[in-house]
């Protein structure tokens, strides 16, 4: 790890609520070094990545795909079990992680358009191409596009944070990955 993780006994006053239910995980334990960042970041992440008007399945497609594109080991390992729990199949997860062609595994045209759009937003430079934008707009309304864009951006922020700080994947996630043969 590039930084230490703040333990509950040394958690700053404004960070303590995040430790109230036990180990808060390495993202919180790293952010706790700067409690004002923790206080602002976690509610944002909760809204951006948590339950919302967009389905859990769609959100996990975006999170896992962006994380795979940015090669965030922590986020890919942590969100693979979540994606399975959200209803994605093992083959879909493998495709999102880049080990298979998404176009051949996903059959829903809205999801295929979304995956191509995420790839472009996460790895491209400059504007998203007109064709990918229009393909996405065939399936998603303005509020959904805004939310999906924030979701990709928030995921990328976490991707770089977790990668730069070399945060450790939880033992529970690693066990689940091994059980699913997705380690």
């Amino acid at each position, binding site marked *: 790890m590039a930084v230490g993780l*703040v333990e509950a*006994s*040394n*958690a*700053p*006053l*404004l960070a303590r609520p995040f430790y109230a239910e036990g180990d808060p995980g390495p993202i919180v334990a790293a952010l*706790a*070094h*700067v*409690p*004002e960042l923790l206080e602002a970041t976690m509610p944002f992440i909760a809204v951006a990545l948590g339950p919302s008007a967009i389905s859990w399945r769609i959100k996990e497609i975006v999170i896992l795909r962006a994380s795979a594109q940015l090669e965030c080991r922590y986020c890919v390992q942590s969100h693979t079990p979540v994606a399975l729990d959200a209803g994605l199949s093992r083959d879909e997860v493998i495709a999102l992680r880049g080990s298979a062609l998404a176009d051949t595994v996903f059959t829903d045209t809205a999801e295929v358009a979304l995956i191509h759009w995420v790839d472009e937003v996460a790895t491209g430079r400059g504007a998203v191409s007109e064709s990918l934008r229009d393909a996405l707009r065939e399936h998603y309304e303005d509020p959904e596009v805004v939310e999906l864009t924030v979701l990709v951006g928030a995921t990328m922020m976490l991707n770089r944070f977790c990668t730069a700080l070399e945060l450790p994947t939880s033992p529970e996630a690693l066990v689940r990955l091994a059980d699913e043969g997705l380690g």
Partner: protein
Amino acid sequence: MSSVAEAVNEGTLPGRVWFYSNYNCNLACNYCLTESAPRVARRELGTQRMVEMAHEAKELGFTGLGVTGGEPFLRLDLPELLAELASILPVVVLTNATLFTPIKLERLSPLAGAPVQLQISLDRPDPIVNDEMRGPGNFAKVVEAIPRLIDRGITVRIATTVEDISDEDLSRLCALHRDLGVSDDDHIMRPVVRRGRAIEYGMGVDVGAPDLPAELTITADGAFWSPFGPTVRAGLLDTDLLITRTTSPLRTPAAALLRLVEGRPPGDDTQLNIR
């Protein structure tokens, strides 16, 4: 009236803002909260920054300033800095009073008659026991310095930090401070707090935020709850009483502290007399 001023008036927020001017010290007391010693990193607050914060503190509605360390008088600019701070708000500065050579005493002239109190540590009426905790020669220097400071028109109060003290020793200590020219009103007693080096020596009482006055305390590392907050253990800063890393503008940590003290009744922190 600002929310800070309202809280100070209501007694829910202490009026004093503390500055950790530096962490280094010429002594290495065995109950030191910050593991201060001659060769530790100074981690100074900038002179200009302290003056700016004093102005901000006054504008926000705070009513006093405290300066502590480390030993603040290791900073060569301290007398002039204290005089400038005292022109903004009354100041109390914590010192071991062992650096007041005739030349240094001469440099304290800007403090004569100013609203600056020097709070000097004196723990026992005898040099042997006192110096066991605070270092050789400490007692003699303090006893010599106090009357000279008072003669120069500088207000002195004495802080006694003790694990336990017999009635007889306390009585002799009080007689001593009166002889030195310090009244009973200017003598405070407080327990050793089990933080910093006191842990290593197995001394002191355990405290948490509820036991400590919520005095906003600014260091080079951030803003803390109480000057007993930014302690150091095994060379690492304790962050359990950290409020925020952001200290500028001062209203940011002040607002965060206000959120934390919300609903705390006035005087709720007085049980252990850690002041």
